[in-house]
Structures are given as structure tokens and as C-alpha cells.
């Protein structure tokens, strides 16, 4: 026997002084020590000591890291399997063991337990089921048997305290795990099986086959108030009928190489990173505007685009922001969000500033684009003096009158869009109208931004350009009238 996987001296156990340097903190006869040994032997035999990380739980085995000469992480109560996933994803070549007791795995950490199992990533979960809370002093565990007396079930566990959780069976029900077995520590034969199961569970991880789970029926002689040999007998007589031993699931042989977990190394190639970040936005867009549109506002033009969800107010607003930034200006867009924007009103505030947008909200916009009547009613009265309102006259027949020298332009966004063939394109019609009415930026600035935004959907460009032109035309012709 070799115990390389154990420290030569348990320096972390009471500083490794005296006897404690070579003995565990566990009570005499506690099953934890045996499982530690089998785990240590498995790690040795598989030759993976250097890349193993043991994640210890909260419970009696919290100090697993006193003993195992591997990378060690001690985790919060119940979270060991996801801490293990965090390690595995950080270094897919590492061999990560989540070692947990029944309170940790089957009570407080149930969500993490099931999730990690179903994710199926190759980690090894060792579950010590001793039917009681050891560390906190003998309280009921989720696996405590009916009738079993504990500190919190002094008259024995009854049904109102819940029934024992059969974790191996539950885990085996999931599609994620490749191997699930329940073993025990009473008698030489069971111990041999336990050792084999633990080794297999680690091996399947080393082979990238997937997630393995070994439940070990273990003895807590202290809180069973028995001698260790009596506790072994108790586990055999009382626990096995409720927690039957054996393999609950083993599909490890049917894991093909395609199904295996593939270790990966993140890329830091500068070209790749840049391309991904830019996503095609890299091409330089020429500037067309001669100056800041100070005929609308001196330093900062504020706009509001409002309509119902699906009117495309946000997209149009984003295009305006993009245009402004293409023109070397500062710009912001903030959408109204919230359940009310889904199907209800959706409005966008846009600022375009010569230097810097200070406040990004548009409570009193210079320009309002209204896609429906409620928006016009709601925001129309707030438009700044000498401001401009452009609304969809296809859906707003009777625009309210707005004071303050505000100019109003009705353009049939929807009608035009439908004529072109796509109702949803009405926001681009609106942009065309906006350009013609306000001359915020030259026509080419608008078209450039539209093309840029549709770079990935080139086929859509002509129709959008057409919509834009029709929107302009409607205004220009209306002006001639």
C-alpha cells in the first residue's frame, strides 16, 4: 500500500504537532477515514495526484484538506459540486472530487447536487451517508431513518419530519451521470466494493467519460452511540433495507469518443478577440455632416421615439445613436424597459451632443417621433418650445393640438411600409421623415448607418433604403402641398 495522496505529515491538523501530525480528527471507527483511504489509494493508483483537487464540504469532513496531498478547496455548505464545476471549467485537465456528507449534499445543497449531476461534466462526487448530522452534534439528516432518534427527532423521525432521501436512486434517474453506485463499509466484501467504486468514479473522470456519483453508507458510531463494530452492524441491518446497495446506473461503456468531455484552452489571440468584439463594425464609416445640427439645439439635441412594443422605436433610436457616433459626436440611447414595454408603450430617449451627453434622459425632447396616439398624447405636451413632432398619420387621425410653437408633421409611416411590403419597416420610414423634416444629419449619414446595421442581412438593405426614401418623399411632397 502506498499513501502518496496523503500528506507525509498533517501540518494543517493542529499544526502537525505530536500525534495529530499523523492521525485524523475523526472519532474512532468513523467511516470517513476509510473513504479517505480508498480515495487516496485511487488517486495514487490512477497516477493523478498532481492534478487532483479535493473540494471539501461543511460537515465532519470539512477538514479533508488536512490529509489529502492534492490541491484543496474548502467550500460553503452544500455548494461543493458547483465549486467543483468552477474548478473543472477553470482547468479541464484537473481531476476534481466533490466530497460531501448527507446534510451538505442531500439537504442544503440539493439544487447544486442535481444541477451538477445533470450537467454531467466529469467530476466525481463522493457522498457519505451516515444518516445523521455529525459535526453539529447528532441532529436529523435528510437520510435519517424513520423512527431513528436524533437530537432533533428525540422521539424518532416520523413522517412529519419527512422521509429518508434516496440520493443514489434520484441521481441515477438523471440523464447527466454516467455512473452511480451505492456502497457500504461493513465487512471486507463491502469495503472492497467501496474501494473499487471510488476508483472507478475517479477513473471515469480521468477518462473524460462524465459525472460519477458514489454514495457510501457510512458509520457515525459517536452519534449512533454504538461501538464501531455495532455501528457497522446497524448500517447493515437498518440502512441497507432503505438504501439498497449496488450499481444504480452505469452507462460508462456506451460513452463514445464524441460524447466525451473535451478539455479546452481559452484563446487570447488578439485578432480573434478583436474580430469578435467588433463583429463587423470595424469598417470605417465616412462622415457626411458638415457640423453639429445646431439649428435644432446648440449643444445637445434630445429626441424621444415612442410607440407600442414592436413599432421599432428602439431600433430607430439606436440607429440615430450610431449615426451621431459615426459623425464623431457623443450620443446615448436609453430604452424604456419593463413589462409595460412588452406590447405596451415603448419609448426611447436619445441625446446627440457636440461634446458630451450630460443627462441621457429626454423629459423635454427637441424632437418627438410618435408611432401611436397614446404616445403622442403622453409625450406631445412635453416637447420643448420650437420643437418638432413627427407622427404616424396612418394610425393617428386626430392629433391633439400642442402649444408652445411646436411644429407637427403627420406622415403615414404604416401605410407606406405596407405599400413597400413590410409593416415592420415603418420605423425606417419614420427615420426618412425625420431626416427630411429636421435635417438632423445628411441623407447619406442615415443610409450609411442603415447599411452598417444590416451588414449581416444584406438582402434587407434595398428595402430599408426604399422605406427611408419614401419617408423623406412623403414629407417633401407634403411640404410642397
Amino acid at each position, binding site marked *: 500500500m502506498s499513501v502518496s495522496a496523503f500528506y507525509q505529515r498533517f501540518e494543517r491538523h493542529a499544526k502537525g504537532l505530536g500525534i495529530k501530525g499523523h492521525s485524523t480528527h475523526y472519532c474512532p471507527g468513523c467511516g470517513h477515514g476509510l473513504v479517505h483511504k480508498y480515495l487516496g489509494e485511487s488517486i495514487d493508483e490512477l497516477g493523478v495526484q498532481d492534478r487532483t483537487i479535493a473540494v471539501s464540504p461543511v460537515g465532519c469532513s470539512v477538514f479533508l484538506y488536512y490529509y489529502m*496531498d492534492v490541491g484543496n478547496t474548502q467550500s460553503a455548505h452544500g455548494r461543493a459540486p458547483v465549486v467543483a464545476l468552477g474548478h473543472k471549467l477553470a482547468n479541464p485537465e484537473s481531476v476534481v472530487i466533490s466530497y460531501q456528507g448527507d446534510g451538505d449534499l442531500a439537504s442544503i445543497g440539493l*439544487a447544486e447536487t442535481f444541477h451538477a449531476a445533470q450537467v454531467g461534466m466529469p467530476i466525481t462526487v463522493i457522498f457519505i451517508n451516515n444518516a445523521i448530522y455529525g459535526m453539529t452534534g447528532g441532529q436529523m439528516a435528510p437520510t435519517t431513518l424513520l423512527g431513528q432518534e436524533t437530537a432533533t427527532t428525540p422521539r424518532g423521525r416520523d413522517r412529519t419530519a419527512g422521509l429518508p432521501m434516496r440520493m443514489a436512486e434520484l441521481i441515477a434517474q438523471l440523464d447527466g451521470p454516467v455512473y452511480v453506485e451505492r456502497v457500504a463499509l461493513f465487512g471486507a466484501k463491502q469495503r472492497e466494493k467501496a474501494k473499487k467504486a471510488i476508483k472507478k468514479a475517479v477513473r471515469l473522470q480521468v477518462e473524460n467519460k462524465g459525472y460519477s456519483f458514489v454514495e457510501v453508507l457510512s458509520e457515525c458510531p459517536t452519534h449512533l452511540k454504538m461501538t464501531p463494530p455495532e455501528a457497522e452492524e446497524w448500517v447493515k441491518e437498518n440502512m441497507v433495507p432503505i438504501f439498497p446497495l449496488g450499481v444504480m446506473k452505469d452507462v460508462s461503456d456506451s460513452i463514445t469518443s464524441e460524447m466525451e468531455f473535451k478539455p479546452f484552452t481559452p484563446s487570447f489571440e488578439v485578432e480573434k478577440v478583436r474580430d469578435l468584439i467588433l463583429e463587423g463594425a470595424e469598417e470605417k464609416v465616412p462622415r457626411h455632416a458638415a457640423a453639429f445640427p445646431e439649428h435644432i439645439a446648440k449643444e445637445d439635441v434630445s429626441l424621444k421615439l415612442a410607440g407600442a412594443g414592436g413599432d421599432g422605436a428602439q431600433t430607430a433610436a439606436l440607429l440615430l*445613436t450610431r449615426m451621431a457616433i459615426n459623425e464623431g459626436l457623443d450620443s446615448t440611447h436609453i430604452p424604456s424597459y419593463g413589462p409595460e414595454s412588452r406590447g405596451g408603450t415603448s419609448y426611447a430617449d436619445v441625446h446627440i451632443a457636440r461634446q458630451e451627453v450630460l443627462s441621457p434622459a429626454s423629459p423635454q425632447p427637441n424632437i418627438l417621433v410618435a408611432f401611436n396616439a397614446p404616445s403622442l398624447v403622453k409625450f406631445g405636451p412635453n416637447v420643448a418650445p420650437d420643437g418638432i413632432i413627427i407622427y404616424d398619420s396612418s394610425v393617428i387621425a386626430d392629433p391633439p393640438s400642442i402649444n408652445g410653437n411646436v411644429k407637427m408633421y403627420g406622415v403615414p409611416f404604416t401605410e407606406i411600409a405596407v405599400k413597400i411590403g413590410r409593416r415592420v419597416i415603418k420605423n425606417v420610414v419614420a427615420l426618412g421623415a425625420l431626416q427630411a423634416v429636421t435635417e438632423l444629419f445628411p441623407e447619406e449619414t442615415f443610409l450609411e448607418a442603415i447599411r452598417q446595421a444590416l451588414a449581416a442581412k444584406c438582402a434587407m438593405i434595398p428595402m430599408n433604403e426604399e422605406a427611408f426614401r419614401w419617408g423623406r418623399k412623403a414629407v417633401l411632397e407634403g411640404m410642397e402641398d
Partner: protein
Amino acid sequence: MDPKVAKLKEKPKPFLFPEFCKGCGRCIGSCRFGCITEGTEINPETGLIPVVLDLEKCSGCGLCASACPEPFGLFMRVVDVEEIAKEDLEGVHTFQEMVELFDKADFELTDPSELFGPRETEAPEPEPIPDQWIPFSHDEPLVLKGNYASAVGAILAGCRHVYGYPITPSTEGAELMAKLQPLMDGVFFQAVSEVATVNMMYGTGGAGLPCMTFTSSPGFSLMLEGISYMVGAELPAVFVNIMRGGPGLGNIGPEQADLKLACRGLGHGNSHAIVITPSTPQEMLDLTMLAFELAFKYRNPVIILGDGYLGQMTGRVNLPDKMKKPGIPEWAVYGDLSHRRNLICSIALSEADLERHNIHLNAKYAEMAANEQRADLFHTDDADVLVVAATTPARMAKGAVQELRNQGIKAGLFRPITVWPFPVDLLKPLLEGARRIVMVEASNGQLEDELRLALSKEGVHPPPIQHVRHFGGVLPQQEEIVEAVRKGEEAAK
């Protein structure tokens, strides 16, 4: 102890140092030949009664050793003891005696536990693998949402591990990561909850790699336990909390009501973290990059607080001129030989140890407070009135200050970029001139509490403080800030 076993060279035989036997008796029943019996004598060193071995009939089957729960308990001796004189072994009864014997025999055993067999490898002293900065160039500004800008900043800071649970209004950051990370062989992983998220970060942060999450207020509440563990275990990670309206489920509008959590309530224990409050998409990028730097510099989580508006706000964003390829710090549990010695944990059983650890953490906090205060000052030099605001409300406040200046009122904006540590060193000199402070907040004065506490610790009595406060997703607007400042000025006259 019967050293007779030493004579039997063909087959290993069990061996036991009595001081490592707890007398549990598990080995007794495992021997078919009755070689092991209950002891009667108390071992003076342990106070326990070790079993007694009589190996006359022993077959060397090893079942007793595999029944013994103690790593240094019953073991099958593999050491070739032929080199040691038989008579010498006769007197050996304890572990200590064995060690002494081997020392005397000039045996090449520096550590007695080598008795248990050869060791595969020895873990070396861990060494750091340094970070690398790679030049990066792109001149044209991008048009990005605040949440996206933060994600881009994280990517450029070398973050390839993003965990999260979807929660509005922070999801865009996660969604962009879900799209981009796999293309860089990085990880975006949707965890089962925020609790799982923070613990996955504990694992990846423990492995020494940069990792992050995007979350929003209720999710952040759930992460606090894990953040406390990370602070205790000294792990780096970046949490972007796009604050929304509360308490409870509240709504998804912008609020600033988690300042108290981030500054004063990071889970249980004496925890603190640097808390950064960007106010533009550009800052979402720049300060996310900074957050990773600080997280590793101090081995501590860093919290970025934005608000629903900032996360959703699209604006102009310039990219930095370099990106990072992270190394592996020497303290990490990476899962390789060079880091095998390491331990990530937040437990310290002895009171003295835990006090020492807390003193160490507090020294770090003091260092953060001394070095990491940041604030943006706008028209503050000659300001009579200081408007103080962070995140999006700071932009409304900036607009207001500009307007007030246009009206001839000497207002200035003090915008904390770190709210913990509160940039009190930058604020103090301004209070020599300022007669009043106007706090603009989307909370019930949580920023004001930080300001007051920081000033009070400095022994500075603040001038009168006025507030403009909103809740529930309503943000203070420029006009009402202007109004409030004007009213205050008139009242002062």
C-alpha cells in the same frame, strides 16, 4: 507491537504504530484468523487503547489494513527492513522509536511517513505564472450598451469564465458572453441559481483565473453568502450588479438601493470589497477592466454597481490599447503539480488564527482605502454648492450643474467612482469652499450614509445636506435638481 513481521520478507504483513490506533476495533472482525484482539493497555500518548496484533497465523491478506480508517494506522509494511539488524527492530514499539532507529541506521528517511512507501512527486514551492499584456489597437469608437461594454471590458481584461443566472435588467451582459465566450474557447455557464453562480466563481477564482457575473439586486442578495466566503478565502472575482427597484421583487427600473449591501453588507463577517460606480458605457468598459486589476491586486472580490438605465444605455465606447492574457497566481489551486500545496479556505478553527486572519484582511481594507479612492470632479474648483451623485443620476446631476452654471450659480458635481472606499480625500478639500451639499440619489440616502460616515471618520462636520431622492425606478431629473439647488440657494440668502 510485534516486530517479528520484519522477518517475513515474502509477503507484506500488517504493521501498526500504537499511537496511531484509535482502538476502534474495526480491524478485529476483518481478520479471519483472529490475529487482532482488543487491547487492554491505555497508550500513554493518546489515552486510547490500541489493539494487539499476534501475527503467528497471519496470511498477509491485508483485509485488516483496509478496515482501518486511519491513514497512518494499520498498514501493510512494504519497507525492505533487511538492512536493519533484527535485534535493533526487537526494541521498536512506537513510531518515534522507529524514526530514531532509522536515524541511527543512517537510513535515507527524512520523514518517517516514507515508511509507508515511496512518494510519486513532491509538490514544489508554488510560483506565479505572470500576466501578459498584449497590444490591441482599434481607433473607431464603438456604439455599445452599458452591459455590453462591461462584457467587452471583461474579455479584454482576460476573463474567459462567466457564470450567471438570468435576471433583468442585467441579462444583455450574460447574453453577449454566451455568444462570444464559446468562440474564444472560454466559458459562459448558466448556473442553477445565483447561489450556484457565486460558488462556481469561488471554484474558478480559487483556480486563480479571472471570472465574473452579471446580476441584479435580488440576485446580488443571494450571492452575498458566497461573497463572504470569497472575501474570507481571499479570492478575486468581479460582480456586476445592475441595480433595480426593491425591496423584494420590486421592479426592473433603475435604483441605487444596493449601496448598503455592497458597502456595508457583504454577507457575514468582517467583509469589504471595493465598490465601483460607473456612469457611462465607456466607464462600464474601463472600470470593468480596472475591477479585474483590483480583484487580483488585493485578492478580493470587486463589486461594480450600475443601474438599470446604465446597463441599457447605449453610447460611444473607445477600446483600450491593450488586452490581457492572465497568468496563474502562486496561491491558486489550479489542479497541477506546481500549485498542489495550495489550499483555498475561509476556516480558521483557533480564535487566535482567525483574529490574525481578520487583522490581515483589515490591513488590506486599509490599503484599499488609502490607494483606491476615485471620484470625478466637474466644476468643483469654485463651487458653492456641491451636487453629489453616482451612476446614472450623476449624469442628470451633471446636466443640472451645467445648467446652473449657465444661470450663474456656482454649482459643482462630486461623483464618486468608488463608493467603498468613499473618496473622502478628494471631497475634503472641496468642503473648504462649498456651503452646501445636494445629494441626488435613487435610494433612501445610501450614498449620503457613506458620505456622512466617511466624513465623520475624518472628523469633518459636513455642511447642510439637501436631498433629491427617488425610488422604485424613477430617477431624479435634471430640472428638479436645478430646482432643488436654486431653492436651497434662495433659502440660504
